[in-house]
């Protein structure tokens, strides 16, 4: 029996229903598969059937989009219970969430909404992360989001905010290099300057994804993190340059959520990432 409760290194892809059968038949060489746990918080049916089969062949990473770690009203107990149940049944190698909020006023906004990086937000995030980690009895990874606004009352940089969270809660980081590129571009910042200040010592997973560019106002453009295309050259370049900053070879995920392509397209992207990864840690 393979040891599936940890991922030492290598590349994975997001697990999509359109690829369930093909993955089981071909069993491509991947270090792990990643799911959004919210899609599996159901009573039964085909998704849970396939997850159960597939998890015996690949380590699973659970990448949540609904915990709303930044909600001023705290995390939702019911949602946390559901995640805890799924984690117990599935034994994922990694559990991650986002530095964002999505729940408030009784509504769930189905998006990763931005937070002001203030001392107040920091205290709130610490409390919510502690609650999640205590319930799950494990550390979670927190991902830097793609953002389209910054707040005038920001007191800390995103990197300093993340570092403090790690120091004070024991959480680790999921570094999304596409999000770094998208956010810094949207806020007229230099992604290399951002990454130079990033606390790589806490990184335990990397995400790579595609995004789109749209006009904003006047001649300005905005990058939107839609996970619906191949990874762009700029993001590959940043990955090559900064991956060696990680303390060791860590898992790298190819994310593609919108209109997923043929499995082979994802496997090709994973191959490209693998080459960079191997060159970095020879």
């Amino acid at each position, binding site marked *: 029996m393979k040891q599936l409760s940890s991922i030492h290194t290598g590349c994975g892809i997001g697990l999509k229903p359109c690829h369930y059968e093909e993955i089981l038949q071909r069993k491509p060489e991947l270090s792990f598969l990643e799911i959004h746990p919210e*899609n599996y918080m*159901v009573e039964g*049916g085909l998704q849970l059937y396939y997850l159960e089969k597939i998890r015996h062949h690949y380590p699973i990473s659970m990448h949540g989009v609904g915990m709303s770690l930044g909600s*001023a009203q705290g995390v939702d107990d019911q949602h946390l219970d559901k995640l805890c149940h799924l984690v117990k049944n599935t034994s994922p190698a990694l559990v991650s969430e986002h530095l964002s909020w999505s729940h408030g006023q009784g509504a769930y906004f*189905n*998006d990763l*909404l931005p937070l002001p990086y203030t001392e107040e937000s920091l205290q709130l995030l610490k409390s919510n992360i502690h609650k999640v980690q205590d319930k799950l009895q494990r550390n979670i990874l927190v991902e830097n989001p793609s953002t389209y606004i910054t707040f005038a009352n920001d007191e800390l940089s995103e990197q300093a905010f993340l570092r403090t969270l790690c120091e004070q809660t024991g959480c680790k980081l999921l570094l999304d290099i596409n999000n770094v590129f998208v956010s810094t571009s949207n806020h007229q910042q230099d992604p290399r300057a951002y990454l130079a200040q990033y606390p790589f010592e806490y990184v335990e997973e990397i995400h790579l994804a595609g995004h789109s560019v749209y006009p904003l106002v006047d001649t300005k453009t*905005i990058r939107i993190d839609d996970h619906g295309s191949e990874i762009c050259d700029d993001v590959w370049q940043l990955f090559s340059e900064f991956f060696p900053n990680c303390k060791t070879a860590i898992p790298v995920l190819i994310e593609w959520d919108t209109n997923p392509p043929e499995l082979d397209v994802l496997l090709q992207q994973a191959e490209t990432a693998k080459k960079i990864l191997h060159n970095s840690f020879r």
Partner: protein
Amino acid sequence: MLSKTQTLFGETILELPDLELPDLKQADLELSDSEQDDLEQADLQQTNKQQLLKLLQHYSQEEAAARIAIYKNNFYRSLIDILLDTFASIHQLIGSKHFEYLAKQFISQQPPTNPSVALYGANFPAFLAIQELSQQLPYIADCASFDWALHCAYYKKDAAPIAAEEFLEIDPQQLMQCQLEFHPATQLLQSNYSIFSIREFLNSNEQAEQIHFDEPETVLICRNQYKVEHYVVEAASGIFINYLMQHANLEQAISDTMAQCAEFNPSQAIGFLIQTQCIITIQGVK
């Protein structure tokens, strides 16, 4: 402060958009005339959006509004797509433009309350029932309930059906005193409209005038392992299945059905239930 910021942000996102929301493109990221008017009235009317814009004072008002519009667009677009997937027959019946118009209002009035959005839209049929559109298309809410029942059946708890032989092994007199437990995915829809025929029509090339929309039809939705299936059933069988689902024993269900429909054929109805594999337990066998 954070709580107030999130309230302002949330309320701004939830506000019913004035914009048409077709596929994300340039138009979605630009201000509509009405949004522009709002901004010009900033000193007169402190809307949520304008209070929020104060927190984003490092942008021009126009740019801040365009940036917030991305979040608003993500919210509406993603949920419209979920409703489109779930209520595909309503989309076919009324077309994209009308569907999105109604979906936006529904989302604004009844946003999701939890992150498992795969099961968002439970109240969409009831919402459709009170729209003006349902006066022209009185069957639309029932068609939406049909879509919803099919959708939910995929996610219900797994259960193994009992085999036909198990029925045969039970003494017929004893069987009459038993209750039948249905697979959790099983649902019975009794409509005053031809919901099954309408669905068949939408999946075929038939002409609309060949369908009599206002003939009552009963539909049974089952899940055979992981495959969701649906059957049109005779009115009498529908009444019988309904009694069984309300936990009547077989004898009582047959007797009550026959009192309403003299032509009811119990053997045929029980045979049909066994064939659809929707019975998972025979309760009361000694």
